C-alpha cells in the first residue's frame, strides 16, 4: 500500500521509498527527513477535497506532505517486535 492510501490514525511502517525519475533527489530528501524502511508512520489528518496535503507523523517528527510525494512511499503492516 502507498502512504496516500493509508487511512487516518492507522500506524504502519515504511517499506520503501520509490524513486521518481523526473526528480531523482526526492527519494533521498524523503529519507533525510525520516522515511527510512522500518520507521513508523501515521497519517494524522488530510485536507478536504482529495486529501492534499496531508499531515504525517514519521518517527517523532511531523511533516506536511503533498499527495504526490506520499505516493512514492510504500507502507506495510507493523511487525510483531515493533
Amino acid at each position, binding site marked *: 500500500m502507498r502512504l496516500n492510501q493509508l487511512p487516518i490514525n492507522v500506524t504502519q511502517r515504511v517499506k520503501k521509498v520509490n524513486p*521518481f525519475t*523526473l*526528480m531523482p*533527489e*526526492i527519494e*533521498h*530528501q*524523503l*529519507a*533525510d*527527513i*525520516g522515511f*527510512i*524502511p*522500518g*520507521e*513508523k508512520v501515521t497519517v*494524522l*489528518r*488530510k*485536507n*478536504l*477535497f482529495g486529501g*492534499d*496535503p496531508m*499531515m504525517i*507523523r514519521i*518517527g*517523532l*517528527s*511531523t*511533516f*506536511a*506532505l*503533498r499527495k*504526490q*510525494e506520499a505516493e512514492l512511499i510504500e507502507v506495510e503492516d507493523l511487525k510483531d517486535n515493533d
Partner: protein
Amino acid sequence: MTESKIHFFPKEPLVALVGNPNSGKTSLFNLLTGGKQKVANYAGVTVERKEGKLDLGSQSLRILDLPGVYSLYPRSLDEEITCNVLLGRATGEKKPDLVLCVLDATNLRRNLRLVLAVKRMRLPCIVVINMMDIARKRGIDINLSKLEQELQLPIVESIGIQTKGDKAVREKLAAYDFKTHDNTLNSTEISDHQLIEADNTVVQGILKRMGLDQIIADPLSDRFDRILLHPIVGPIILFIVLFFIFQAVFSWAEYPKEMIEAGTDFVSQFISNLLPEGWLQSLLVHGVIAGLGGVLVFLPQILILFFFILLLEESGYLPRAAYLLDRLMGSVGLSGRSFIPLLSSFACAIPGIMATRTISNARDRLVTILIAPLMTCSARLPVYALLIGAFIPARKIAFGIELQGFVLFALYAAGILGAMLVAWILKTFLSSQKAFHPLMMELPNYHMPSFKNIVIGLWQRTIIFLKRVGGTILLLTIALWFLASYPNPPLGAIGPAIEYSYAGMLGKALAIIFAPIGFNWEISIALVPGLAAREVVVSSLATVYAIAGQASSAEEALTPILQQGWSLATALSLLVWFVFAPQCLSTIAVVKRETGGYKIPMIMLTYLFSLAYLASFITYQTALYFGLG
C-alpha cells in the same frame, strides 16, 4: 597564469554550529555571542552563515551559525553553504576547528543521524543537546554520560531560549584544548546515501539501550492541531486571524500616531519661529521635517503588524498556515516550499528572496523570486495608510468591521491574487515537463512565544525603520527639496514657484505618461525618488506639497491637502499602482545577486511596471466611469 588566492584568517579558533533545521542553533548562537540573529519556530530561518565572537576570558572564539541540514548531502543552496563550510571549501572561510552538533532533545531519533554523519567527516565535535527543558517536561529522560559512551563524543546540554542556558556549553568550550585536536584528518567523503539506513539502525540501537525508543509526541501540539488544522474550522480561524490583524493595524495606531503628529508640528513651529524666513528654514521645515515626519507617523502601524507576525512566527503557527493554504499554492504550480519565502516578503522582499535558497528546484525558486515583490512589504504600509486614511471614510461596515482595515486587507489580498495569477501564467506557458512540486515541510511543536524575542524583534524593526528614515529617506528628501526649489521662478511669473523648478518641469513631463492612470504632476514627481524606496513617496509628496503650498501651510498635515487636491479615482489608482509597481532598488539589487545576472531583474522590472500600469489604468478608468473623478 594561475593565481592562487591566499586568505588570512583571524587566529581565533573557528567553531561551527551544525544541526537539523529548527533545532535551536541560532538561539544558542545568540546566547553565546550576544548576537541578535532572527529566530523563529520553523525550519529554514537561517539561510546564510553568520559569524559572531565568543569571549571566554582566557581566549576568544569565532562562532559560525550555519543553515540547518537533515544530512550532509546538499540539495538546496542553503544546505550547500553548510556542507561547504564543513569540508573547508567555502570561499573566504577556513575549515572549522570544532563542530558543535546541536540536537533537539525531543527528537533524538532523527537528530542523531546527523551526528553520525559529522563524526564520519572526522571533524572534532562536541554534541549539544538543546531544548532539554522541553524534553524533561515531556518526561524524556536522557542519560548524558551514557549517550557520551555510546557516541564516543563529549556531550553538553543547553536551553537555547533561557538566559544562561548556554552555561554548560561555555564551560566545555573553555576547557577544550584547540591545540591538541587537529582538523586536518578530515576525510572529504560526503555521507553516502547507502549509509542512511545503516545509520538509522545504529541510532535505533542506541535509543533502545538508553530506554528512549518510545515515541512520545507532544500531546499539547496534537491537541492544538486538532482545532487549528481541522479541515473546515482551521481555514476559518486562519482567515479570522489575518482579518483581525489588519483591523488592529488601523484601530490600535490612532493614539501613538496623533502623538507623533503633534511632535512633528511642534518641532516645525519651533524652527519656523526660530529661523528667519529663507532657504534654510524652507529646507528644514518643508524638506526635512515635512518629509521625515510624514513617514515617521506610520511607525506605530508597522510595529503593530510586526507584533502579530512575530507572534505567529514564534508560536509555530506559520508553517501550519502554509499547510492550510497549500492547495491554493499547488493549484497555481507553486512549490509548498515557496510559502515561507513569500511570507517573509510581507516584511520585506529582500529576506524573502534570500529565503528562496531553501527551494531545491531551480525553476520553482525562480518563480518564487519573480513573485516575491508582489507580497505587500512593510514599506508599502505608509503609502497605503496615508491614502486610506485620507480617502476611505473611517466608518464601520457590517458586524463592527472597520472599512479602513477592510480596504487594507483587500490591498494585501490583491497582491497575493496578482502573485497567484503570475505564477499560474508562468506555469501554463513555461513549464515544459510534468511538474513535481514537493512540500515536505516540517510542522514544529507549538511554543509559547517568548516576550523577550518579541520585544527584540520589534526593537530591531524600529531601528531598521529609523535608519531608513535617517538615511535614504532623508537624503532623497533633501535632494527633492533642492530640485523642487530651484531654479527660482522668472520675474513676473504667475503660479506657484515649484512649477518652474527642475522637479516641476520633470513632473510635468512625466505627467503626460501618467495622465491616463490619473496621476497629476505632483504624484509623478514623487514617484521618481520613490523608485529607491516606497516610503519615500510619502515624504516626497509631503515635501512637494509643502513647497507648493508656501510657508503658511507647512505645518498642515498632508492628509487634508490630498483630500482637496485629488479625486477618489486618482487615489484608488495610486493604491493599485503600489500593489504592483517595483518601487525598490534594493530588491532589484538582491535579485541580481541571487540570480547572478541582469536578465531576471530586467524581466521583473518590465513585467511589474506593465502590470502596475495596466491595473491602475483599469482602476482609474472604471472609477471615472462610475463618476468618482
